[in-house]
């Protein structure tokens, strides 16, 4: 099985008051696929993304990445798994505003890993920032534009060379031009390096660019006719 393959079976997430937020009996995503998860607000898209990232302690069922089940593992092991194999991007960039783009993008070089791996992370961060058109200067990221900041966050998600990119509405806080730029950067990168990309988004441009759409309504996946765009 090649890297970045997801198999979900009987996934169920319940929230406060035992309300069922998500139920996914079966979902498979193959290595290198680009998938957009769409659906109305409150449908459970973020919940699904968090569940397959191993961020929800209360998720039940099976989430297998490349054959490894992660839900039954400890919080520490799940963190190690994310560190190794996932790159996460959120609607809000959550950057450290007071330091420069390279410190933010190369943040993974600051914990764990061996010296040579750290160096590789920083080098990749530098290259990615360049690719994404971010000036490599020392000024703090607080002074960068919203679009630039989101691209720095994207570089951070990719710097440790994860097999899978998970993005939750990455373009929601951006204007059209910046959103398109991020979509092309992200899609271009995922396709060029064969990464699996799973993005929650309402953005039509992102949906159109993806290989596949998964639609969620009321916590359940509903089938989407091939090629149609909602």
């Amino acid at each position, binding site marked *: 099985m090649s890297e970045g393959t997801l198999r979900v079976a009987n996934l169920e997430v319940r929230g406060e008051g035992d309300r069922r937020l998500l139920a996914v009996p079966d979902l498979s995503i193959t290595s290198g696929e680009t998938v957009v998860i769409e659906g109305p607000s409150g449908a459970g898209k*973020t919940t699904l993304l*968090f569940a397959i*990232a191993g*961020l*929800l302690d209360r998720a039940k069922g099976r989430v297998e990445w490349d054959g490894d089940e992660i839900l039954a593992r400890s919080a*520490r092991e799940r*963190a*190690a*798994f*994310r*560190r*190794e194999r*996932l*790159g*996460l991007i*959120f*609607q*809000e960039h*959550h*950057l*450290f*505003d*007071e*330091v420069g783009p390279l*410190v933010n993008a190369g*943040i*993974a*070089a*600051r*914990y*764990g890993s061996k010296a040579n791996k750290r160096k590789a992370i920083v080098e990749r961060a530098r290259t990615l920032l360049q690719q994404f058109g971010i000036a490599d200067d020392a000024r*703090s990221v607080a002074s960068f534009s919203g679009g630039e900041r989101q691209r720095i966050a994207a570089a*951070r*998600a990719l710097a440790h060379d994860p097999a899978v990119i998970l993005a939750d509405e990455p373009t*929601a806080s951006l204007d059209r031009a910046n959103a398109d730029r991020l979509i092309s950067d992200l899609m271009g990168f995922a396709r060029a390096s064969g990464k699996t990309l799973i993005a929650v988004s309402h953005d039509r441009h992102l949906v159109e660019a993806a290989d596949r759409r998964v639609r969620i309504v009321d916590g359940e996946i509903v089938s989407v006719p091939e090629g149609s765009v909602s």
Partner: protein
Amino acid sequence: MTAMTQWWAGLAATTQDLIWLGLLLLPGAVVAACLLTGHRPAGLSFAILRRFRFTSLLFLSLIAVSVAIGTGLIAQERGLREATARAADPFDLVVAAPGSEITMLLAAVYLRPSDVPLLSGAAYDEIARDDRVAIAAPIGFGDSVDGAPVVGSTAEFVAHLSGNLAEGRFFEDHFEAIAGASVPLSIGDRFSPQHGMGEADDDDEDHAGGEDPDHDRDHQGEAGQGHALEAEGEPDHSHEHHHAHEGFNYTVVGRMVPTGSPWDKAVIVPIEAVWEIHGLPNGHAPEREEQVGPPFDPAYFPGTPAVLVKPRELYQAYALRADFQRDDMMAFFPGTVLSELYSVLGDVREAMSLMAVLTQFLVTAGVLAGLAILSRLFSRQMALLRAIGAPTRFAFSVIWLHAATLILGGAILGLGLGYLAARAISGLVAERTDIAVSASIGWSELHLVAAFISLTLIFALLAPLAALARPIVKDLRA
């Protein structure tokens, strides 16, 4: 265990202090090592420091001030204790008429005289003749020149205090004087003494001293205020000198080396002259009235407030004290009286130290609580760090390192401030008492600060706990 104790006792004091310092710092170092090994949180801690730079600066200053108060107080207290003890060092054994040891200590050692009874010529003679006594120097105070006490004694006593002279020679004539190191008189200067302590003293204290009470005819009114100091070769007894002992002039012939005691501001003259000025016999029979220094003739000895006794051998001091401690005399070791005084004050001292340390911890507790609240503002970034898989220990260390920076920075700055404060206070003390206090940062302050650092570094673990107690996903949702 005993081997361990023996090994410890065999170490040099500095080595012991160093080991203590290491042991006290160890818990903090262990916490730091546990949190930081393999991680590099400094860049992100720096981001926090920058975002909250004013709050951080305020917290750092608070820690610094509290550390400064703690160390400054302890350093100052020790410096004062050592300096007063050093000033009393040359005074092996003091014998005086029965009375208060502390009053006599203040008068004879620190030159803060008050009315004291006199020791008779017979008593002095008995002391001086004792085989075990190397030096028996009478000390007669009560006069002054420009606020500097003029003390009557012997050349032996000057040599005992000062060793060699800084310049000039010992006195060979009754009206020659030797100036203390910081007295503004030069060799060859002439002055006439005033009765009492000049401007430095209260009016009612003016006849503290080594003379008969009816010497009062010698002067008019209270302690003199005028300038008795005269320009060389120009004896001038103008109207402004009416409190002075008119007609008596001393010539400065020597200067002592600095002793770090009130004696640096004193002028020592032959005790014979002090007696003569007050119209008393000068300690010697008329046929030998020109003699300077011992032996004195008990029949012509008008009395002295105190006698400094230096035993021939150190061990004889206790026997001498025992022998002279009786109904008509008292004998005491100034060093012992001082340490008794300090042990009386010991509880106060401990309470003060405790309060200083307590203040230090209260301030730091406040600062750490503030940091815990601050770190809530970083909960988003912390949530993100954990979401992308950063080890909890790393997220923890980012916040802890920020607190640790403030603690370490504050502690080091506080040590410096404490040192400066202690020095400033020492300067004031020296100015007022002429006791040279050298307050420096010693091992006990370093140990206190080390313990403080270790303890607060451990307490600083509470700050990140507050930030990391929140569930990750809560802060990730926009």
